[in-house]
């Protein structure tokens, strides 16, 4: 009457195609169906429980729930302890320790190998650096020597130029006073130079005119 299938499919994740041929379990009346005539005006009597009984029931249940919580916790802790100390756990521990040792050994050998390679590399590097440093030092020495030679040359050149020493000063002054240098000059459009401040063009004959050298 209320649409239902004769056989039910089991509520299993990976075997959903299995069919169950057992009795259909009545769970509830379908939601759209009308209320039965015998039940329309029915008022269900609410069970009256006295207050003290209610309190007693509550007390009992509170205590029970409390003890159940603690019992479950205790069982859980026991299971943890058992898992730690059981045979399977011990064997696992032993295997893990062995594995650990093996890996440590492997690591040690690998480290030694790489250490040897590193030693050689470092030796070669050290030699290289030594050689380079030596070469640079030698070069620096050479350069310093060159520099010294240059300085000496320069100094000798400077020394050879006629400086005015304290002994020559009077003579130098007299010479300077006797031979004044006049830097004034004039240029001609034809390219001739007339030196001196007060020279007149007419005083110099044509042949003795200077040609301006652009050197």
């Amino acid at each position, binding site marked *: 009457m209320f649409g239902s299938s004769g056989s*039910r499919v*089991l*509520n*299993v994740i990976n*075997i959903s195609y299995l069919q*169950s041929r*057992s009795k259909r*379990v009545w769970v509830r009346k379908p939601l759209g169906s009308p209320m039965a005539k015998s039940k329309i005006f029915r008022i269900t009597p609410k069970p009256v429980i006295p207050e003290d009984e209610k309190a007693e*029931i509550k007390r*009992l*249940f509170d*205590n*029970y729930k409390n*003890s*159940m*919580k603690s*019992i*479950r*916790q205790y*069982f*859980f*802790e*026991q*299971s*943890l302890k058992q898992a730690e100390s059981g045979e399977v756990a011990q064997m696992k521990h032993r295997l893990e320790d062995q594995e650990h040792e093996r890996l440590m050994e492997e690591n040690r050998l690998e480290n030694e190998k790489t250490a040897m390679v590193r030693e050689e590399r470092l030796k070669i590097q050290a030699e290289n650096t030594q050689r380079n440093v030596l070469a640079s030092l030698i070069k620096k020495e050479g350069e310093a020597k060159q520099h010294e030679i240059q300085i000496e040359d320069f100094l000798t050149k400077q020394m050879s130029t006629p400086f005015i020493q304290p002994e020559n000063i009077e003579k130098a002054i007299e010479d300077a006073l006797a031979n004044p240098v006049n830097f004034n000059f004039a240029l001609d459009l034809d390219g001739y130079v007339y030196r001196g401040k007060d020279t007149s063009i007419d005083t110099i004959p044509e042949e003795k005119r200077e040609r301006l050298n652009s050197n």
Partner: protein
Amino acid sequence: MASALPTFTKIGKVIRLNRHGCTNRPFYHIVVQKTKDNQDGPVIEQVGSFDAMPNSKNEKLVALNFERIQYWLAQGAGLSDPVAQLLGLSGFLPNHPRTLIQAWKNRREPPRERKIEAIKGIAPPLDNPKL
């Protein structure tokens, strides 16, 4: 303790009664199942049995595998009321309040009319008129 918290998370499994037997003759398997599965659906493990009909010696026989029940409770499985009551009566867990409530109600109310006579055997006569 942070490590103890897993006991209170629901793992979706429950220890409850599965009705087997025939019409008017129930026989229950105490069983660990996923909560979503039907009563007659797939079972993870059977952990005992309960015969609701008293035998020739006036006993209701119950079998319980305490070690496995402890394991599943440690994993966080739930308990249905009847199974909790049975475990309480057996002494494995504290007595369920329902047992006590039923007891004082039985004492209070007059006995119910029975079609079948109670079997008198080796077990002591019932002082609980309700049964």
